[in-house]
């Protein structure tokens, strides 16, 4: 049975950057595991330590009980794709795979099978330099699968794929993880890192959430979501009566956008109240928290790391500054947005005042007054939690 075990895994880059900090986790076979975290959380560094490309500062990570570099046949045990790079642009896709197959002692028929699977056999003799990002992703997947590995580690595999490609990948990963291969017993380990949470929610069964190099959560996604807030929304012509009835039954109820909303209760609690009071219902909806809101609550919506992972600025005030201070046409000046104007107005005004939106943004970036403090504006998604 395939295993990945990290114990006290730590990686420090230089004196200042603690990329991964005493991380413990176990990958669970038989399902797809999402490896999630904000930018700079240490996802890629951790995966590279699993694969022996980066040496941990301290701690261990073992694959099948061994360090990656001690695996006798790594290609047959672990398939990994880390980024859609790592191709010589002048080499053909087929030759790229043949080289890895040669290193692993695999027959070239396997190269053809994998090219077929990802739909690249037709273009296999074309140079990778001419491939789109999506084609490179498929080629990376084909390379990972060469040795029929029981452990699959994919970093952002959906990047660059078209919607059909993403749907295919989703189905494929589910199939691959749950297939009862003789070597895998209960199924395979499939670890997928992703920053597209809505996409990940559709694929993953388990999650490992990192934040600032530490483990923020690990477990079944359904368990994690079950422990979070759920709510029931009801649309009814008798809204006032329903609110009163619910409150009488000690259930929290408020009116929101024409709906009666009950936070933290189940439909099983709301239903009897409606039947008892003979309230006509037009629509009823139960919702659990999404992976996205779970993610924000786990990671605080921000990263502890400074620099590029600091919260982003407030885009609603981005174009407030003088976009083209040199000679703006009078008509545009008079139509310039007041501070209260909405973002749409801002965008169109800046667009018409200058040669184009790009020129407007560039001017704003270099000549506008200092950007508003990140703390001033709500973080994207922060309002949903």
């Amino acid at each position, binding site marked *: 049975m395939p295993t990945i075990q990290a114990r006290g895994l730590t990686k420090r880059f230089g004196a200042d950057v603690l990329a991964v900090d005493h991380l413990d986790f176990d990958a669970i076979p038989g399902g797809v595991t999402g490896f999630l975290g904000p930018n700079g959380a240490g996802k*890629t*560094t951790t995966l*590279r330590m699993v*694969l*022996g*490309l*980066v*040496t941990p500062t301290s701690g261990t990570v073992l694959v099948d009980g061994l360090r*990656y*570099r001690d*695996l006798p046949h*790594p*290609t047959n045990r*672990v398939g*990994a794709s*880390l*980024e859609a*790079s*790592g*191709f*010589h*642009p*002048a*080499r*053909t896709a087929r*030759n790229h795979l*043949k*080289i*890895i197959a*040669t*290193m*692993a*002692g695999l027959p070239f028929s396997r190269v053809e099978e994998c090219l077929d699977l990802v739909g690249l056999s037709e273009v296999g003799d074309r140079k990778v330099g001419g491939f789109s990002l999506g084609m490179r992703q498929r080629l990376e997947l084909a*390379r990972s699968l060469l040795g029929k590995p029981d452990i699959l580690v994919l970093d952002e595999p959906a990047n660059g794929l078209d919607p059909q490609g993403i749907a295919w990948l989703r189905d494929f990963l589910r199939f691959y993880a749950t297939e009862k291969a003789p070597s895998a017993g209960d199924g395979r380990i499939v670890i997928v890192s992703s920053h597209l949470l809505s996409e990940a929610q559709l694929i993953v069964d388990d999650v490992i959430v990192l934040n600032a190099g530490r483990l923020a959560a690990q477990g079944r996604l359904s368990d994690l979501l079950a422990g979070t807030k759920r709510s029931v929304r009801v649309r009814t012509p008798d809204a006032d009566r329903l609110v009163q009835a619910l409150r009488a039954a000690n259930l929290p109820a408020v009116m929101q956008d024409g709906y009666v909303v009950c936070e933290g209760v189940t439909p099983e609690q709301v239903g009897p109240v409606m039947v008892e009071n003979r309230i006509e219902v037009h629509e009823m909806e139960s919702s659990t928290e999404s992976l996205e809101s779970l993610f924000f609550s786990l990671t605080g919506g921000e990263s502890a790391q400074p620099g590029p992972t600091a919260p982003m600025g407030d885009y609603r005030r981005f174009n407030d500054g003088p976009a083209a201070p040199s000679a703006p046409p009078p008509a545009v000046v008079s139509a310039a947005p007041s501070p209260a104007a909405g973002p749409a107005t801002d965008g169109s005004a800046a667009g018409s005042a200058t040669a184009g939106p790009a020129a407007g943004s560039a001017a704003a970036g270099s000549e506008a007054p200092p950007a508003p403090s990140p703390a001033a504006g709500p973080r994207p998604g922060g309002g949903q939690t």
Partner: protein
Amino acid sequence: MTRLLRAESRKLWTIWSSYVIFLIVVLIDLLFGFLVAFAPGGRHRGTAGLVPHGSTQWFVNVFSVLDNSRLLALVLGVLVITGEYRHKTVTPTFLAEPRRGRVVTAKLGVSFGAGLLLGVVTMLTGLVIGFVLVAVGVHSCLSLAGVSQGMSQATCAGQGVLHHYYVANTHDMWHEWSQIAPGVILGTGLFAVYGLGLGALLKNQIVAIVVGLGFTLVVESIIVAVWPTIGKYLPGQAATALENAARTSFSASSTPLLSWWEGAIILVIYGVVLSYLGTVTTLRSDIT
């Protein structure tokens, strides 16, 4: 290791830049060979002025420029390892073979083989040049140009029939070629190993090529001129020692050289020691 050697060889022969290096070698050999043969006032290795067409010294001078191929062998060796870092193919390579020292060892073997092949191609090009020169020599003998270049009609006539002259000239050329060929081929092969070592240590493609060529062409010449006793241990001089090993007619060298086997050992040491240092330092670092 057999798998790794085959994979590395496949890596080399599935990109066009390797073929370009072979093409450049052939072109450079042809260019310099004929330039030395026919350039008026051309000088090479202390031999000044015109050398009579068809003389042994003529062939000695022409074949002596073939060793420039080892510079391209050095570049080839550098590319074998730095190309992996440049195009990030090092990630799939080390995923498939995480024991990095074994990868470098395979690259060492493949570089040596490719370098030897480069040497063979060089010497075959040299042979083509040689036959052209024989033909030119025969032509010179029949023309007034031959007289002006030190050969009298009587000399030619003294050989008896023209055929005789042709045979003798071919024999001289072949003799000279066969004396220099083993040294050039082995030296070119070992220079590719030296290049691989440089690449393993420096990792950056451009830096490794500039350092390799700059050291061989500039720094080494200065050291050889100033401290010849130290200079003879440097890679370029070691390769020259190897090249001149069997040459009886070559005496123009004014600087001290090692014996051929010492030169070969020194070159192997450069390549292997640099590769080893690269493996335990540069290549051990994280692939991010």
